[in-house]
């Protein structure tokens, strides 16, 4: 079974408001406010002391011994790895789980988005293919230069659409969801993401569905009847047509 979701163009909308919280709080008297501020200051001081007392030992993982001159520290591993092609995990079974298609007018953006997705997949333990280039679309537009009728001098414009794809293998649906939601959170405006998810079901999937007692179909499928068919019935039952049949 194939399901499609689109994460580039704001398909998923969420609203968040803090208005309700403010209203519930109500008004605070001046004395109470002073108390509040005091309490906050004490809490902040406690937090600061905690941070100072349990210091995390500085032991970064490094790849090379390059040292940033101004800081006197080695380059952290995650920063260093940005210079190299993203790592990929080997496939265990080779079952395709998801395909992400990227489309953009800027090739640099598409590479940035794709490599980001691959790195995220690597750290989530999802084996992926490399960033594969698909066919580049190039559309030409030739228009007359003059606003008036002189059609001899023309100007050419073009729009190039770059396309790339990543295939993900052998991951649980939960992990794939986590990966995709992370990508959705950090998506680029200039890149169009289209995801094709592959789900696997047992051979008796239909029978299992039939045996379910409290099965509720999604509301979106309610009342799907061809409006034209409904109208045809209505017309044929109307007075104009009744006398003719």
């Amino acid at each position, binding site marked *: 079974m194939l399901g499609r979701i689109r994460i580039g163009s704001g398909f998923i909308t969420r609203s968040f408001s803090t208005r309700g919280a403010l209203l519930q709080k109500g008004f605070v008297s001046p004395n109470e406010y002073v108390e509040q501020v005091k309490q906050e200051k004490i809490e902040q001081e406690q937090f600061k002391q905690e941070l100072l007392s349990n210091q995390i030992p500085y032991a970064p993982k490094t790849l090379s011994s390059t040292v940033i001159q101004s800081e006197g520290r080695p380059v952290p591993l995650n920063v260093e790895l940005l210079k190299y092609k993203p790592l990929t995990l080997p496939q265990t079974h080779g079952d395709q789980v998801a395909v992400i298609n990227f489309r953009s007018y800027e090739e640099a953006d598409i590479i940035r988005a794709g490599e980001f997705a691959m790195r995220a997949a690597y750290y989530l333990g999802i084996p992926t293919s490399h960033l594969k280039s698909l066919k580049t679309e190039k559309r030409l537009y030739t228009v007359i230069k003059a606003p008036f009728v002189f059609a001899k001098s023309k100007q050419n*414009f073009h729009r190039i659409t770059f396309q790339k794809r990543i295939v993900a293998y052998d991951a649980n649906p939960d992990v794939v969801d986590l990966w995709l939601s992370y990508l959705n959170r950090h998506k680029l405006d200039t890149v169009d993401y289209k995801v094709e998810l592959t789900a696997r079901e047992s051979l008796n999937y239909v029978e299992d569905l039939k045996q379910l007692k409290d099965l509720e179909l999604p509301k979106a499928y309610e009342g799907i009847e061809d409006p034209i068919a409904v109208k045809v019935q209505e*017309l044929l039952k109307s007075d104009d047509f009744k006398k003719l049949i």
Partner: protein
Amino acid sequence: MVFRFPVKFAIPKHAHVNTRVLRDQHKRVQFAEHEVTRNALRYIARNTELQPRVRLEAQLQLSTMPAYTSYTTIKNRCVGTGKARSVLSDFKLNRTDFRNKARNGSIPGVKVASW
């Protein structure tokens, strides 16, 4: 003052508005409204299993519907200038408006080509 169109409709937003654009908008709204009826009548008229009288009645009703409910009267117009000639359907823009905007860099991805 008499209202110019047989029915009232919303003036299009986000587009250049002039008389001809409004006229076209009226046709679009009317087509959308009558699309189901037209298709139903066409289905009855073309269904050979129905009696010829019924099919003729459907054909008559279809032909007596106003012309502005027909799709063929709709014409693509430039969103920026309202012009009807040489409209690039990819951008919904007239050739001159498209050129101005493309040279200005306000159409994403479109660049001057040279080879």
